[in-house]
Structures are given as C-alpha cells and as structure tokens.
C-alpha cells in the first residue's frame, strides 16, 4: 500500500509527480480518491493532471478494440431510462414531444438542478409538457398545438436570472446543428410559433432543448449556455 508522506519520496517532484502517478494509474484506491478530490477543488492541480493526460494519451493506441455484446447497449438504456414506456395511445398523430424522460442534473448559474419532465395528452391536437425543476427558478408548462404549430408557454414559476433568456432549440437529427425555435418571452408567458419549413423537421429522433442564453437569445446562432431541459421526439 502506498502512503502519502515524506518518507516515500512523494515530495521529490511534488504535485507534478503525483498528477503523473494518478494518470499512470499506479496509486491505490485511497490515494486515488484523495487525488480526485484535489482535482475537483484545485484548478492548478487539475491542470497538471490534464497535462499528464495529454502526454500519456498516445499510449491508448495499445488498446485493441473489442466489440462488446449487442445486448449491452440495451442494458445501458435500461439503466438510464428505466421507466420508459414503449407506446402511448391517443397522442397526436405524428410525434410525441417531451416523452417521459428523466433529465440528468444540470449545472445552472443558480445551482444544481434536478429537473424532470412529464407530459400528458391534452384534448384534440394538443400536447402538454410540464417542465419542473427542484429548487430552481424554472417551472413552466408548454402546450404544443398541432393546428397552429405553436408552443405556448405558461409560467408556473418563472424567475430567469436578469439579463438571461431561455431559448428553445430543435435538433433535427444526428449531425444537425441546433436550430433556434425562438426565445421564450421574458415574462415566461407567450407562444413560439414553429415556422412552416421547420415543422417538417419535427420527426422521430428530433430533440427539443431549452438552454439558458444571454438576454435576447444566443448571439452566435448556436446554444452557448447550459441546457435546462431537453427531450427526444418519438413516435408513440
């Protein structure tokens, strides 16, 4: 067992050597934990680790790829999305938005959010999504109306930090750049009309995502801030 102390020569080379040993992988479990805590708390030390990572990474070439069993991906999905149901009758004909997804925690300026979203089919051609986030400033309901192609936003609680906007994005498919659907009005109430040519892109696999952007929306045309909520469109 290795011991962190002056006797073992740890201080010859100091932090830089420790960072190198961590990346090399030779440390025991206890010291690895201590080093990981240090990486999280000490940016200067984290840079030393990143530099060693970069130096030693060419050695990754020694790993021969081995095809994992086919069923493994299904098991990963089951771990990540355990409550997912395969079909839901009575939904609007071509797609369901914001399928019952559990969102991962997302770091937003105001703190760590654990966001979840649930939805239920409304009357006729509408779809309702409730976006809630524990301990967060965001709590809103979105109605998607198929006839008008608009997404109406109703705030339950809406306290976006000043000078910031929430922007809704559509990601058509793999490899496609996020396409802005518009900025949610600063009051949190209002509608985003999905343009005719964009409606055609709302097909299975498309992603809707809500990101936190500078006031008025992303200056670059691509998401720049943290994603507050997102979900994949799937056929029922």
């Amino acid at each position, binding site marked *: 067992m290795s011991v962190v102390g002056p006797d073992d020569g740890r201080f010859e080379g100091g932090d830089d050597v420790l960072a190198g040993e961590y990346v090399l992988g030779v440390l025991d479990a206890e010291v690895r934990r201590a080093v990981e805590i240090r990486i999280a708390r000490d940016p200067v030390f984290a840079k030393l680790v990143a530099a060693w990572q970069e*130096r030693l990474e060419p050695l990754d070439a020694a790993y021969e790829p081995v095809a994992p069993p086919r069923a493994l991906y299904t098991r990963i999905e089951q771990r990540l999305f355990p409550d997912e149901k395969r079909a839901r009758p009575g939904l609007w004909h071509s797609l369901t938005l914001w399928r019952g997804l559990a969102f991962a925690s997302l770091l937003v300026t105001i703190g760590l959010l654990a966001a979840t979203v649930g939805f239920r089919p409304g009357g006729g051609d509408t779809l309702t999504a409730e976006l809630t986030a524990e301990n967060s400033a965001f709590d809103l309901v979105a109605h998607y109306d198929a006839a008008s192609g608009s997404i109406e936003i109703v705030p339950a609680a809406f306290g976006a930090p000043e000078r910031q906007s929430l922007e809704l994005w559509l990601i058509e498919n*793999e490899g496609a750049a996020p396409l802005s659907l518009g900025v949610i009005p600063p009051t949190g109430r209002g509608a985003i009309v999905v343009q005719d040519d964009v409606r055609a892109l709302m097909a299975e696999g498309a992603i809707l995502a809500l990101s936190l952007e500078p006031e008025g929306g992303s200056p670059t045309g691509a998401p720049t801030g943290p994603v507050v909520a997102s979900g994949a469109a799937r056929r029922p």
Partner: protein
Amino acid sequence: MADEEIDKLLARVALKDRKAFSALYAKSGAKLFGITLRILGERGEAEEALQEIFVKVWRRADRFSSGRASGLSWLSAIARNHAIDRIRARRAVSVDLDEAYHLSDPAHDPEELAVLGGEGRRIAKCMEELEPARAEAVVKAYVEGLSYDELAARYDVPLNTMRTWLRRSLMKLKECLER
C-alpha cells in the same frame, strides 16, 4: 477523421440527444470495451464496467470541451479511470488471487510501443531514452492499470524502488516531451 465525429456526437449527447448517444456507443464502444477488458481481464466485469462508463458519459458529456483533448481521448480517460478504480477496489479484497493471476501473464511485451503512430512516435522515442525495463514498467502501468505493489512484485524489486523508478521515469519523459 472519426475522432471529430466523436467530438460532435459528444456535444449532442450533452444536449441529451439519445440518437447521438447511440451513435457514440457504436463509434467508441469497441475501443472502450478494449480498455476495460485489458485492465479488468475478465469479460463479465468488463461488460459491467462498460455499462457504468456509458452511464457516466451520458451524465457528464456537458463537461467535455473539444478545445483541449479529443473526444475519444476524453472517453478513453473515463474508461481507464473507471476500470482502474474497479480493479483497485477488487484487489483490496483479493490481492493474493489477483497477483497470482497477473503473475501468470507474460511479463515481457515489447510489441506494445510498436503500435504507436503520429503523436505516439514522440512518446515512443522518449521511452527509448529510459532504461528498457523502466520504460516497459511505465507502459504496463498505464495500459494494464497495474499498481505500484503489483509492479514491484512483477519486477521483483522493493516497493520503494519501483516508486523511485516510475517517478523518475515520468519526469524524464516529461522533460523529453517538452524538449
């Protein structure tokens, strides 16, 4: 190159795009499985580790910034770290068994560095400046995830000698790579 594709997929996974996640698995799963299998040495455990790694990737993709390392390097680092953590935890309970298992491996594997190309040629060149046994210990430590204890046993040197070897080797490598 496929690497850039992985960067793009990671950016989409950060937005919780499941289609991109599935494509990322298709592109990188075999490489990451190669890593877990090599370090853990046992198929069932390597499969379990691979699942945990992809769960982490789904949750942490937003921490990847394409500016620094390539997406594949980032994924490989997650896989290596996870596999090493697993094997350290396992060996804490069954050191004897595992050492016996590892000692039965061929101790010498000079082919390891031969696969290096591109950026890897630089590190291969710098490895040549080290004593062969020490260079080999560095590569084995990295690729197989061996601990100081295991390396000391395998090379039949005292633990502190192995520490000194590897620490000095690391600093020499760094000095050479920065030349």
